[in-house]
């Protein structure tokens, strides 16, 4: 291959129809609440781990929906339950997190 000093950049487009929904569907079976998230960010705002590590349950849920790898996103979770307390949609976020921890490998 000729070296031109530049190459094609990887597309940053989210190709929605080719997103792998399998894990999200798996998650919805384990925690039905995963499907009703409205992304308000209450969980992330109140998260004691979020302030220091940038952890965000909202982003994790979105990333699972988008078929992305979330393994590195939950490592600071202390399961303290504050997110469960503030969620306006009543999502059992602790079960959500534990379920994600069990389905990603």
């Amino acid at each position, binding site marked *: 291959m000729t070296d031109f*000093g*530049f190459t*094609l*950049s990887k597309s940053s487009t989210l190709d929605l129809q080719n997103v792998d929904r399998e894990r999200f569907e798996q998650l919805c079976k384990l925690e039905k609440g995963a499907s009703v998230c409205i992304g308000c960010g209450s969980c992330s705002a109140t998260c004691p781990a979020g302030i220091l590590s940038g952890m965000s349950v909202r982003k994790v849920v979105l990333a699972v929906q988008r078929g992305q790898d979330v393994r590195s996103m939950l490592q600071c979770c202390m399961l303290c339950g504050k997110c469960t307390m503030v969620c306006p949609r009543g999502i059992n976020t602790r079960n959500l997190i534990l379920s994600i921890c069990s389905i990603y490998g």
Partner: protein
Amino acid sequence: MLCTMIYEGKQRIWSEYQKDIPDDRWYYVRSCIRQNFFPASEKMFTEITRNVLGKDIYETPHHTTCGGIAYHCDTIPQETAMTIVARQFALMTEAGYENYCPSCITSFGNYVEILETWREYPELEARIREDLWKACRREFNKPRYLAHSSDLIYRWRNEIAAKATHKLVNGRTGEPLRIVEHIGCHYAKMFPSKGVGGAEYPYVLAGMIESWGGQVVDYPERRHCCGYGFRQYHVKANRGYSMSNTYKKFESMEPFHPDAIITNCPGCPYFLDRWQYVIAEQTGKTYGENGFGIPVLTYEELAGLVLGYDPWDLGLQLHQVAVEPLLDKMGVEYDPSAKYLGLNREDIMRPELPGSIKCF
């Protein structure tokens, strides 16, 4: 079957974006870069308009750059570009013309933008008049009509069709050729009302294709930039990004199997043509049939082929992507051995051919 959308819907939009294009007496200005990229194109424009159609097309050697590239690369302020443009208008005024026709899309966009700016801010126009006077003691009238040279070919497309020796039809199958039309971004995206057919579904090239017997290919990334993007290409570190945009277009048009691409901008044909080679080198992928690329032509080159000019006189040997498959489909006769013979049949030497994309 190609999906061509609801044709009546497009027609309705086209009808809303019509512009007055006078039939004669044009002051023609060339592009800075086209003469290097596809040198026969502008020559062919004057040839067709003057000799085939008998129009009054005036040119002057005093004409300079319009400043558009520098302006879009953020290296000069708009006032500087305006003063340069004012001088061009002064040349036109001095020559006694009122209709201004640039060959370059960026120039066209630049002129439109400046005229619109002056319309909004007359005081700025007054200042530029003053600056121009101070700089070179010239005065100017603003053009009555401004049209891009592709607008003129569009205006005369049916006259050309009437004189055509070849149609955009596959001689073997009798099917119309599938042609992708690519419009330069600065043609109508900034001022949709200034382009034939508007910005979303421009008709300027589509009209030519239809008149000359071809079929327009409508593919999802039709609106996307060719990838040139001035700063993106000019800074070498960004060239991967430039090419990625071109790649995106090719990936999107590939399933439609286009026979050719025509363009009306200086940069677009160049990058759509050359990047096909680089993409083939890097990914091994070609977009035409049998390992060829998709031929990329300027509208003047296409008009030339339709009117029966010799492909090598049209400068088609300077294309990276081989045009022979297109010529074969159209039934254009050509002498393969004459491909690399220049003016006076002087050997301009056959270039080294790449292995990744089929060329002659």
